[in-house]
């Protein structure tokens, strides 16, 4: 019981982690992308198309996983590029652009689910990506023992471990490398970064696209792993929680790994608590959001510089026109 709870929590945590790692990269460049839920939807579409194509092409498990990731990143990255183009080059309002992308992305996922699925799956009846999903869900370490440790930590699909690896890599890059230093500087004080010879616009574009691409893998993971290839359920809710997780983790992907686990636990816990009515389970669902709101208030109360959102978050930057 506890073992399945923890195991399930870790799996869901991976979805949050992808989204929040991606959003963290974007926010570090000073852009608040509220389009993450939509971008994850795009990633889901791309991932499913990729997985299906690879499967039809007779690829093995590895090929399917690679195709899923590649196409998820491609689709989501394209949306990231669109977001970047609107907010960086066309200087549009970030919130407005983000919300539009969310509307658009969720719409596209729903529309595709209803109609275009036919393009990629030709068999009759209800259409799922069950077959591809089985490859994605297959435990990365093969058959493992029946002990609690294996069940909790070793029984997941490749994408779960990839999420953690990506988060760690991003955390290291942000904290320990010059690239990360530059990105941080752009989010904090783009004028200073510009004066130091950093190509601000280039960095912003790259982080918007890369962040979106990473979040996109999360979308594909939601559909192909969490929902076992069924396309019935929307995934925006997970996207919004991922945005919340960025705040909860204080813009640090390293903390995000723990944070995503906490969120995952809170997310699945209501299903594993016996003896209370469904209505109270709904109340429990508030906790992740409430905690995030609280974190937001507390960090603003203490006003410690290191825990604040990037100073230039949401503030457009243009070098002065001559």
């Amino acid at each position: 019981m506890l073992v399945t709870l923890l195991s399930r929590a870790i799996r869901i945590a991976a979805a949050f982690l992808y989204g929040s790692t991606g959003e963290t990269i974007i926010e570090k460049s000073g852009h608040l992308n509220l389009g993450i839920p939509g971008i994850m939807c795009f990633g889901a579409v791309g991932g499913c198309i990729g997985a299906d194509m690879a499967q039809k092409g007779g690829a093995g498990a590895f090929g399917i996983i690679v195709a899923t990731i590649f196409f998820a990143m491609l689709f989501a990255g394209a949306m990231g590029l669109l977001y970047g183009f609107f907010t960086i080059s066309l200087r549009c309002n970030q919130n407005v652009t983000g919300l539009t992308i969310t509307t658009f992305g969720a719409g596209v996922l729903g529309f595709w689910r209803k109609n275009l699925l036919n393009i990629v799956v030709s068999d009759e009846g209800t259409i799922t990506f069950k077959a591809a999903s089985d490859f994605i869900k297959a435990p990365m370490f093969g058959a493992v023992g029946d002990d609690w440790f294996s069940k909790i930590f070793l029984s997941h699909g490749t994408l779960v471990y990839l999420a953690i690896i990506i988060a760690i890599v991003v955390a290291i890059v942000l904290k320990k490398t010059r690239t990360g230093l530059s990105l941080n500087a752009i989010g904090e004080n783009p004028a200073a970064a510009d004066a130091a010879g950093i190509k601000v616009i280039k960095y912003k574009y790259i982080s918007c696209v890369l962040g979106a691409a990473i979040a996109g893998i999360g979308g594909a993971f939601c559909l192909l792993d969490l929902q076992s290839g069924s396309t019935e359920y929307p995934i925006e809710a997970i996207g919004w929680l991922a945005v919340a997780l960025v705040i909860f983790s204080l813009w640090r992907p390293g903390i995000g790994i723990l944070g995503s686990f906490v969120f995952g636990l809170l997310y699945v816990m209501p299903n594993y608590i016996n003896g209370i009515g469904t209505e109270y389970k709904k109340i429990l669902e508030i906790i992740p959001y409430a905690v995030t709101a609280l974190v937001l208030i507390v960090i603003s109360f203490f006003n410690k510089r290191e825990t604040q959102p990037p100073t230039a978050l949401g503030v457009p930057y243009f070098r002065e026109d001559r």
Partner: protein
Amino acid sequence: MKAIELVGITKTFGSIHANQDINLDVEKGEILSLLGENGSGKTTLMNMLSGIYFPDAGHIFVDGKEVLIKSPIDAFKNRIGMVHQHFKLVDIFTAADNIILGEKMPPFSIREKSQELRLQAANEISALGENLDEEAKKKAISKINNKRNLKICALPFVKFGKAVAFNYLPRTRAKRLQAIADQYGFDIDLKKKVYEMSVSEKQTVEIIKVLYRGADKLILDEPTAVLTPQEIQKLFAVMRKMRESGKSIIIITHKLNEVMEISDRVAVLRKGKYIGTVKTSETSEKELTEMMVGEKVDLNIARELPIDPQPRLVVEGLTVRNKDGLHAIEDVSFTVNGGEIFGVAGIAGNGQKELLEGIAGLQPVESGSIIFYNPKENKPVTFFHNDLKQIKKKAEMGMFHYPDGTPVDLKGKSAKEITRLVNEEQILYYENEVIDLNKRTPREIQELGIKLSFVPEDRLHMGLVGNMSIIDNMMLRSYRKGKSIFVNRKKPKALADKIIDDLGVVTPSDMTPVRRLSGGNVQKVLVGREISSSPKVLMSAYPVRGLDVNSSYLIYNLLNEQKARNTAVVYVGEDLDVLIALCDRIMVLCGGKVSAIVDARNVTKEQLGLLMTKMPETVERYDYNVAPQQEETKEEEKNND
């Protein structure tokens, strides 16, 4: 060979010539001062060296070669580094991180590296002592060779490792950078976060940053403006050390004593034009001042003698700190009289802004008093500033009299009756109201009739709302009047139209957003509004900045009108000719302290120039300002008689 040479540099912004045909050169290992009044184009010129602006015409030579500087990166490549007046640092980074920010590691060639290793090994072998016996020698040589071979074998891996390592932030970065800091004698903790730093520390970080990026030509834009005297001495020591190591430095400053102290040569700009370069050892402060301020220009501004000047605003020992916690204004005392124009001279940034904002209640005052003598003598009391209760209380204190001179006693009178008396202006004040402005809110101060029209560099930053129409901007001060929940645009519209007519504001209509007007017209709107409210004290800073000649005269006339209305006018200006021609008395500020308060009718431009550029401690007492303020006022009164 010259480190930097500028030939015929010209830059225009719109119709304004910021720089006109400027020639300038700096030798290696030399400190050049760039001297000039505000708006003489010093910073613009330097920004063209650091890649912020691109010249319209002219040529830049660096180390004898002509170069193009299109961006800060180009400036780095030419080893030019500029320390801007407003620091460009990331607050939450440590000093060390700020210094290495944006640095790119150079790639290296394996062949060169392996040759270097071979050479190193050969040197080590040849360095082996003669007195070693053969066996030991052989052993040592093979050891060195083995080590060399191992290193060469590892090179591809090292390169790969390095490629990562280049991007990797070394943990000991602060320690490594400390070496540079120590070399020039900077006293700084590189692990400290920038937001915890003082201004001088931040400046140090900027200088180290520039040095670290390999600059050997440094431009310092008014580095001393934000420093204490001790810190300035430290900075100068560092600058001398840099000169010794062959670096060229251009320092922009206004302070003549510093120019004389630190620089080898001085280049002077005036109104965008190049005046000349002189050797510091062969010049004097007097000569420099003359170069800087130029010939006296006769402006023909009408100036009447003040009529019945009574103290209106008395400031005693005022001290105000700026945002960085430094004393922007220190122990400043002066009196402004009604019916006179009180000039404030000084290089921009010497506390003028803080002084005015301190009086207007926009900046917290650390110490000192600001007393306002509200000219109420024989004027009727109104409900504008007093409610019924206050009027009763004041009447009890015996502050009022009737028009026939008998004291007012309101005891036993009904509220209705009192209201009638007040509205019929039957209750008059005996004497001026004495009000301490300290600790009053900006709104209260404004409503007392103390108006501040401050024209900052960014005119729309404060005082006007760019996206609002001229009419809406007119009512910024007055919209609260009346009990209606709606704003009344009738009066503001009339006012806007009047200002447009009177001041000749060029605008499509009175509904045009202020943002769309040209700078001069924006200024007219702002000044016009402040004056229209018939203030008792009018503080106006740089009201003619950026205006053409005719508009400037319009403003002068307006100020003179106010003077005739017995308003106390405080005029903060930068053009010395205007100050001398327009004002009655001039207070000179330097470093936030009063250098002197002089009679504008018999002071020369050079005298003012010297006062502006010398810290008060070093000011010799000139003859013309021995007379203390009160005496001066008396003199003026006598004149009036």
